């Protein structure tokens, strides 16, 4: 029976570790960094990740408008995603996300957005690329926001939007200056990222015939000066003019491959490469989200307390041990949600609560079986062991068929933008898997170690077993 104590210690250690992860406290850096491999930021696991239906926000499903004769060009959707991402990042939201879905759709999530309609307009708008003369006295850097003769009130509009909480603050070095636009992006015919003979990444571009004369004159007169490439008021790049540019040119610099490709895409498609239409919008107000959190929390606590009470009333001591296993189960679940991570939505919470039902059902199956064995005159120890072993096939088969439904639901949710359905399937599946561990293994270990120390007392006091 010494093994049982080792197992109890292992279970308690696991419980403590899960509790540590689940609690809303500061976590050590190695844990947060270990959870976000390959990303430059560590993941904050102080709080659970909440879905838009709980924290409020807007989810937009965009679809590329394409005709049957004209298929989607390769990579067009990826390029569109980069542009949309950049525009979304300009909205000043906490954690906006853009995800491709299938071959012609993308999902944009804007948590906490105040004016969803305007945000959608911003995403779908056609951006404008300009070549701007920064003058010789002032220094401007990529990322700066400036006025140009083409858009003389860009800075004022941005400041207005920032005050209204609809845009992220930008670096504005010269709020009153209006810089001279030399040409707009229309003169660009093709822009590609490529490698030069030393394998350094660069951006190659060709100009259209009509207006290149004007560009040629300017670059010829400004060799050695800086040229600013500006998209919608924001400076993308500030290359130095090395030679007069007639019909094609190269921007070189210390670019990584990603930087070069991203800049090429932005220059090419100041406007989106393909028209996008909004096919599904879902906005949940922050007040409704908060209501949902409060209510589901209340419902979980009441429902959970009722179940715990019911188990003790019906099964006495085993019921109490199952309740402890249930507490471990809830903690393990919360820890898993942070580690995987699972974005918690309202149906996700429903899935979690239902998985508690499954966990309890496993214990009920076992304990009912135990009572049956006791009634038919088996010894206590044998009844406990038979209870677990005989109940197992039913628990296994039942849980596996639930997992099958979960897999189908998850697939459905993943392919059809029904992220609510996906959240439900994920929490139910995680719950069912963990419940097989706690309801069977943990409860059995507790029962065995209890029997080995207190078995005699238990036999004298049959009321403790509730039969």
């Amino acid at each position, binding site marked *: 029976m010494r093994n049982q104590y080792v197992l109890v210690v292992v279970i308690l250690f696991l419980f403590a570790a899960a509790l540590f992860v689940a609690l809303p406290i500061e976590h050590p850096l190695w844990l947060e960094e270990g959870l976000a491999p390959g990303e430059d930021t560590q993941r904050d696991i102080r709080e659970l990740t909440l879905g838009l239906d709980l924290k409020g926000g807007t989810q937009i499903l965009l679809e590329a408008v394409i005709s049957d004769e004209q298929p989607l060009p390769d990579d067009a959707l990826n390029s569109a995603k980069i542009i949309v991402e950049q525009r979304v990042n300009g909205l000043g939201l906490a954690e906006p996300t853009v995800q491709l879905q299938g071959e012609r759709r993308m999902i944009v999530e804007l948590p906490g957005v105040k004016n969803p309609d305007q945000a959608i307009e911003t995403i779908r708008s056609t951006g404008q690329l300009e070549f701007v003369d920064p003058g010789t006295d002032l220094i401007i850097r990529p990322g700066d926001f400036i006025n140009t003769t083409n858009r003389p009130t860009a800075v004022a509009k941005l400041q207005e939007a920032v005050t209204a909480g609809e845009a992220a603050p930008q670096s504005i070095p010269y709020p009153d200056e209006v810089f001279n636009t030399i040409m707009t992006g229309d003169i660009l015919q093709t822009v590609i990222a490529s490698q030069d003979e030393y394998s350094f990444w660069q951006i190659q571009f060709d100009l259209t015939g009509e207006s290149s004369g004007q560009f040629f004159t300017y670059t010829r007169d400004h060799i050695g000066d800086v040229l600013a490439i500006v998209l919608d008021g924001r400076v993308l790049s500030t290359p130095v003019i090395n030679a007069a540019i007639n019909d094609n040119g190269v921007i070189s610099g210390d670019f990584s491959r990603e930087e070069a490709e991203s800049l090429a895409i932005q220059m090419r498609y100041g406007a989106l490469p393909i028209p996008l239409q909004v096919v599904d919008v879902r906005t949940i107000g922050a007040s409704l989200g908060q209501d*949902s959190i409060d209510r589901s929390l209340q419902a979980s606590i009441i429902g959970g307390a009722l179940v715990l009470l019911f188990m003790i009333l019906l099964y006495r001591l085993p019921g109490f041990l199952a309740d402890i296993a249930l507490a471990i189960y809830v903690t393990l679940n919360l820890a898993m949600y942070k580690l995987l991570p699972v974005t918690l939505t309202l149906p996700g919470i429903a899935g979690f609560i239902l998985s508690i039902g499954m966990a309890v059902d496993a214990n009920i199956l076992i304990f009912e079986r135990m009572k049956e064995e006791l009634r038919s005159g088996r010894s206590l120890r044998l009844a406990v062991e038979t209870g677990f072993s005989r109940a197992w096939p039913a628990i296994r088969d*039942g849980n596996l068929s639930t997992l*099958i439904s979960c897999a*189908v639901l998850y697939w459905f949710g993943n392919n059809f933008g029904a992220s609510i*359905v996906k959240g439900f399937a994920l929490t139910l599946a995680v719950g069912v898997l963990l419940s097989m561990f706690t309801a069977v293994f943990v409860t059995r270990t507790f029962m065995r170690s209890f029997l080995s120390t207190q078995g005699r007392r238990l036999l004298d006091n049959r009321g403790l077993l509730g039969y």
Partner: protein
Amino acid sequence: MYRLVEHRRIWFLLSLIAILPGIVFMLWNLSTSGTLLPLSIDYTGGTQWEMRFAEPVAPTDVGNVFVEAGFSDTKAFHVEDDRTVQVKFKNIDISQKERIQQAIVARFGEFDERLYRSIGPAIGAEVSRAALLAVIAASILILIYIALAFREISYPLRYGMAAIVALVHDVLITVSFLSIMNLFAGWEIDALFLTATLTVIGFSVNDTIVIFDRIRENLRRYRGAPLATVANRSIIETAQRSIATQVTALLVLAAILIFGGITLRIFMATLIVGLVSGTYSSIFTATPLVVAWEERTARGG
């Protein structure tokens, strides 16, 4: 010994009585609106908009703004309290939304946008197809699983088929329930209904498996006993578990139904009906069916 499976005609009749309103409703719905079920905008496409005003507002007044703007097919009703109005109408694009929003603010004052959902008809149709596919795929996979899990006893496929019939029975009961609620409270089949249905399927199969598992075990123990006797015994032996499980599940579901807020109400009510039906069908549909099948082939052969 109780003679549960012998009285199967009564149980089957009870199921039929519960399912019939749903079938009648579906046929009536098909003849009036052209679709079998009261589908929400998740499947048909359309717009749903919930606004909470500072003062109590009559839904018909809000609805009239939409009608004046050219959306004749608009439904408006209160949710939760008399300051909150939900409007359902056909799809609009964003420029139209701003226009209507201005008209509403001009008449009723500023409001809190609690919820806005607008989904195109093409997406809706795609979701419907996928939903149907999801239910069928889940059923087939479960059938295969049960046939495999019960392969050591004779005719494992019968057990799988009986479980599927019980599952279809439960889906029909929930649809019947929802169609009655549609008649009285305007409830619709939305994306969450699919989630509820698949959960019900999972639990129904779970319940059926518990009884079948006991039959599997008892067939080994009482070799030569008629299947009906073994089935009756298995149902009785697992009855305590069925009741206890049912009570715990209902405790949790009822807590969410009562305290969980309006968003989950239809979902939870559907689940409760489905769960009760699932336990009923495992005892009174699936098990008698296996026995009936066996007796019929025994008589025939």
